[in-house]
């Protein structure tokens, strides 16, 4: 069974699609680190918030999945800009601990606000693609997973184009290189910071709305996402967006094979173990820590 090629291929397909999900979920964290040099500890809660907003828009407003997903990801951008404005902008010149504690506090507030609003019982959102699946050579591909992969492709190419060609994207790359120099040449650092927050939150919210239909929704669902994202970002090189993509896929594949051929405890531990190993062997991550486009 374990050596059955179809089974191995199935594991590869699962791992690959899960891994692209990890990359999508982690890229917001990598952006904030790469461009602002800050660690966003409310990252998991941004993901959670995206998922709950989706649930709310579908249940309360009765919107169909596709529209709700896009709208809520856009709403998340606004929230990200707000978060950056309130927590990161005033702390840009202080020690990084201020932002750590500030975002931590925002995460706690979000988690408990959602718990008060929606209760702690797991909820479920239905996506039309959830029940779809098709088969290629014995390997099953699931509709929602394919949507995650498609979203990854769209989001990463969009991000690439944005950083590469837009004026604000260029400013972001400049800020990743040297913030003091940006101030001197007259780039509005606060504005770039808000934009970075918006972009990161939108991407994280997008991950939330496309990935969450695969799982239950509960207020501290962000914790699992945040460990995986930290692992992906450390392995790929803090702030390195392409590194995050590659590390995400690698982690997804490793977990898929560990879960399929080994057991669940090993699967859960892999992210952490690889992260520690990486810190010891190559603290700057596999691909270095600069934002490259």
């Amino acid at each position, binding site marked *: 069974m374990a050596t059955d090629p179809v089974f191995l291929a199935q594991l590869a397909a699962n791992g690959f699609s899960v891994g692209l999900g990890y990359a999508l979920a982690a890229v917001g964290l990598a952006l904030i*680190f790469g461009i602002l040099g800050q660690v966003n500890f409310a990252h998991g809660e941004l993901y959670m918030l995206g998922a709950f907003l989706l649930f709310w828009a579908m249940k309360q407003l009765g919107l169909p999945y596709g529209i709700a997903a896009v709208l809520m990801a856009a709403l998340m951008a606004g929230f990200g800009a707000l978060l950056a404005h309130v*927590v990161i902008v*005033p*702390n840009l010149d202080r020690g990084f*601990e201020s932002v750590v504690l*500030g975002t931590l506090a*925002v995460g*706690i507030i979000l*988690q408990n606000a959602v718990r008060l609003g929606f209760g702690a019982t797991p909820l479920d959102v239905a996506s039309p693609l959830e029940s779809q699946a098709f088969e290629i050579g014995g390997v099953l591909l699931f509709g929602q997973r394919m949507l995650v992969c498609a979203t990854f492709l769209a989001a990463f190419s969009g991000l690439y184009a944005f950083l590469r060609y837009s004026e604000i994207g260029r400013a972001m790359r400049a800020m990743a290189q040297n913030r003091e120099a940006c101030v001197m040449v007259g780039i509005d650092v606060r504005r770039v910071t808000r934009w970075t927050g918006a972009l990161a939150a939108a991407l994280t919210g997008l991950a939330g709305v496309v990935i969450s239909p695969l799982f239950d929704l509960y207020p501290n669902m962000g914790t699992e996402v945040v460990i995986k994202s*930290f692992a992906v970002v450390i392995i790929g090189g803090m702030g390195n967006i392409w590194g995050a993509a590659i590390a995400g896929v690698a982690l997804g594949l490793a977990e898929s094979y560990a879960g399929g051929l080994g057991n669940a405890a090993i699967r859960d531990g892999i992210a952490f173990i690889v992260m520690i190993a990486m810190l010891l062997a190559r603290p700057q991550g596999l691909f270095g820590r600069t934002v490259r486009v």
Partner: protein
Amino acid sequence: MRRRSALLWAAALGALLLPLAVDSPYVLHIAIVTGIYIVLVQSLNLVLGYCGLLSLASPAFFGVGAYVATLLALRQGWDSTATLAMAMLAGIFSALVVGFPSLRVSRHSFVIVTLSATLLLQLVALNWEEMTRGSLGLANIPAPRLFGMTVRTRIEWYYLSAAAAAIAVFCTWLLVSSRFGRAMIATRDDEQLALACGIDVFRTRLVAFCLSGGLAAVAGSLYAHFISYIDPGVFGFSVSETLLIMVILGGSGTLWGPVAGAVVFTALPEMLRLTPEIRSLLYGVILLSLVLYRPRRLFP
């Protein structure tokens, strides 16, 4: 100085006589939990206050202590003196595993790794069902028997917890007022200069981190025996936020400030009868306001 020590003696006397003055089980319960929190708060104070390292791993070591003591008591029927000692060793060992790689690299990575360790251990406690019974938790943890005495009644528990708190504060004092304490403060205030003075910054931090892990694990094992039931919630991240508030608002890097923080922030939510969600929400708001309006307060 004189006034402060008079205040301390009065507080100590008050703590000693508390069970005679009030016999409300509810108040005693809160007092016992406060004692456990004092142990935990000193564990964070060592790392955050005296070494200036933002560690989010306190709940991890607390949980390790709770699970190790519980499993040894339930599965192996070990005596509590032994389970307590093993819990402490387990705490020290896990701190070594987490601290060794993360203290070598950037301060960013340290925070990330300490948080990840907490979350990971919670995940393991949840999913390793043969061992931990997952989210069902482990119940019927026996009352501790220490040096041949079984601690059963609330009053006995109160004195056990008060003794633990006193020992924790005393050990912290021994440490921070010693040569080693000077080294900790030096690495916190100016890492480069500490290196130039020949202080092994990495070793100093690692030792402090391990001791802090041991202390947190002791608190965890006491907690498990006291509540007599644990589930993966002991790794709950909300513990971290409560601790941070107790230490930072109390005064990190001082001996008694965090103790006062522990007393106030255990008693206050109980007195106001806040639900856990509201309490956490409030703590989140306090933490955020601290960051925004009193940033200098955050680090000594």
